[in-house]
């Protein structure tokens, strides 16, 4: 019985790889299609990012194929659900790479999954874009030949809101943190608090709360924060956790006594609507905003926003923008590699080589991939405000930071780099201000 099942799977697999082989042979050097494996959440709480990103990917793939593909090769997408558990994820990832023969993978949203997929991609020698996960550790700790990140990492994503806070509210004395209890919540607080210590050693941390990931109730945390009355409350939470926390805090007047800093709240604006008060500092893990002051009039930007709104009824959030960046990097790197290869279709080694120093542009400012495979991405931070024409809070008093100022240099680890900050480093980081228009 065991064998029956096995052989079924095996025969299927064999048949598929045979099909892949023949098609490859037929197209000689140039494949009939460019296969992209994408891990994203379609179940579980992180699907608030995964589902919009998947829509974005589909829109982008349709767009590429409509104009004839990448250098004449149409793209084909394969999605894997990060929420289905690591066994499934790994088995499916391997199957896509080994049997299906995907050319490039985009993995993944979760830092935990990235931690696993990066070494696996390296082992399987398949070009992988870490398109959304935040952890700075992967590329700082190990050297990879096939793994690249097409967006920033946690360091600038956390430092930018801190810089903004220091500039706009220089006088705060106390701070409390309410983060989800998992790697991102912990890591982001580590970066934030270490940087804060260098900039404002006098600020007192009055509470460090890490409620369980996916907690349904923050009433007790809100009570405690009301009793403590910290000047600033930081939360890098997202999704249902952030929504619940914001609603409970708003209902009980916590926003009146404390300044909130919510570095990921750009992704919750449209859901929270009036539950998110004005005057809250919000970020977007990059310069992602559907009203990006520098790029909102670009054709590409407008077209994508419209298509996205048409398909989902919502404006795109940062995870969709990260997906756009991954596709932009893909198109750019094939162009670059094909040119370098004298017009011939490149091998994966050539693609990997072309990634270094690659310039590409998603929906925000242009990005560049450093020699360690890490992209430099600008950061947009602002303050919520109510404006006509939107039934949710928009971002006003924006500041856009250049990514390179907030990143640890190549070869240096973020925390070590942060510990060397001069006392006024962050308040002097250059930024371009914008108002809502």
């Amino acid at each position, binding site marked *: 019985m065991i064998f029956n*099942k096995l052989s079924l799977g095996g025969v299927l697999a064999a048949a598929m790889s045979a099909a892949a082989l023949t098609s490859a042979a037929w197209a000689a050097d140039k494949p009939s299609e460019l296969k992209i494996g994408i891990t994203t959440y379609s179940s579980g709480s992180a699907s608030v990012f995964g589902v919009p990103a998947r829509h974005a990917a589909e829109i982008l793939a349709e767009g590429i194929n409509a104009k004839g593909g990448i250098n004449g090769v149409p793209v084909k997408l394969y999605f894997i659900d990060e929420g289905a558990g690591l066994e499934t994820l790994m088995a499916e990832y391997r199957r896509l790479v080994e049997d299906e023969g995907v050319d490039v993978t985009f993995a993944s949203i979760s830092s935990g999954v990235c931690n696993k997929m990066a070494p696996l991609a390296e082992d399987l020698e398949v070009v992988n874009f870490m398109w959304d996960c935040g952890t700075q550790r992967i590329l700082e700790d190990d050297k990879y030949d096939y793994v690249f990140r097409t967006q920033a990492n946690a360091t600038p994503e956390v430092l930018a809101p801190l810089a903004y806070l220091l500039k706009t509210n220089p006088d705060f004395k106390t701070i409390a943190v309410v983060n989800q209890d998992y790697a991102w919540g912990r890591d982001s607080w580590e970066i934030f608090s270490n940087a804060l210590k260098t900039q404002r050693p006098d600020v007192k941390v009055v509470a460090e709360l890490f409620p369980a990931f996916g907690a349904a109730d923050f009433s007790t945390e809100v009570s405690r924060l009301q009793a403590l009355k910290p000047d600033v409350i930081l939360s890098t939470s997202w999704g249902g956790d952030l929504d619940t926390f914001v609603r409970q805090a708003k209902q009980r007047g916590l926003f009146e006594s404390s300044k909130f800093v919510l570095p990921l709240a750009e992704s919750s604006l449209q859901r929270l609507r009036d539950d998110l008060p004005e005057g809250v500092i919000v970020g977007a893990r990059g310069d992602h905003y559907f009203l990006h002051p520098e790029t909102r009039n670009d054709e590409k930007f407008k077209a994508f926003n419209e298509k996205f709104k048409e398909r989902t009824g919502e404006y795109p959030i940062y995870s969709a923008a990260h997906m756009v960046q991954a596709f932009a990097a893909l198109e750019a790197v094939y162009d670059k590699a094909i040119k370098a290869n004298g017009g011939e279709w490149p091998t994966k080694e050539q693609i990997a080589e072309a990634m270094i120093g690659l310039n590409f542009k998603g929906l925000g400012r242009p990005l560049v991939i450093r020699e360690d495979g890490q992209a430099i991405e600008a950061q947009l931070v602002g303050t919520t405000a109510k404006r006509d024409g939107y039934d949710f809070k928009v971002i006003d008093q924006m500041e856009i930071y250049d990514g390179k100022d907030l990143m640890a240099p190549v070869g240096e680890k973020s925390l070590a780099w942060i510990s060397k900050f001069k006392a006024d480093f962050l308040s002097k980081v250059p930024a371009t201000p914008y108002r809502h228009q």
Partner: protein
Amino acid sequence: MSRKSLDAFPDHAVSATAAAEAPWPVRRRHREKYAMNKELLAFIIVAVLLAVVPFTFGTSTTFIAMSLAKGLAVLGILILLRAGQVSFGHAMYFAIGAYAAAFLSSAFRGIDMLLLIGAAILASGVAGAIVGIFVTRYRGIFFGMVNLAFSMVFYSILEKAFHITGGSDGMRIRRPTLLGMELKRAEFDIAIYYVILLFALLSVWLVWRYLRSPMGEALRAVKSNETRLEYVGLSAKSVLLGGYIASAVLCGIGGVFMGMVQGLATPEHAFWTRSSELVFIAALGGPAHVAGAFGGTVVFEAVRTYAAALLDDSWQLILGVTLIVIILWAPGGMVELFRRLTGLDRAKTLTPEAGR
């Protein structure tokens, strides 16, 4: 006798009718031997088939390796089911196995695989003995619940002790050496496949023998009559404890293998739904036979992986329906279905017709 007896695991029921009509010792032995040979033959065939997988269906190697690893844990669940007990916390030992490897491999780079396995056996065995001393006081639902509580405490600690365990992202398990040899990824995949296969076959054989030994038969007695067990001079608690430790160790071995294949130990391994999954697979495969543990796992994992092809995001739905169908119409699981289809059950359970 109806197959839908009150009994969860109808092999006893089947053998009941069977044995009732087979009073002649000589012929019975003969048949037993015949059945044994047939099973041994099946065992060898399956073992050989699995041994050639890397050469025939190379790309399924890792999938099967993971299924076998999980199957080892299910085998542990099977032992407890023999005593009529079901644990909703055994994923804890699975996680202990994986974390033992994670800690060791991050402390000593290039540590040998066999040491990791040894550490996992030791850690899960010790944990099983300590927790077992408490939980073997309980039976039925409470046994399941107390195990659940222990595993949830453990799960919460794994998540909370961020600086030690890496929190919810877990810990990386670096690729170990094997007998001092450094292995590349492709070599490692093959090597660990054979190590897992070896352990799986060995465990199947050991568990098979154990369940038929006086100690294993005493486990069944825990299920049917603890009073009599006491009154033949045996403590039901210690019998169950023995089975509990064995099951914890099997889960630990499963966990260390899963961890090494995935290169990762995460708290998710210890979450209660994982424990339920193990019990789920045991019921799906059929608790009456060691083959059920592995057959069930392969089917479970295959459905989970390939369900998406049938209907987007539907693996839970499909598995749930499958399990209900199995429980309602074939409570012996796939093993029973298999026997029904092949008629092997007759030989196995010694009905008079079988020998003819």
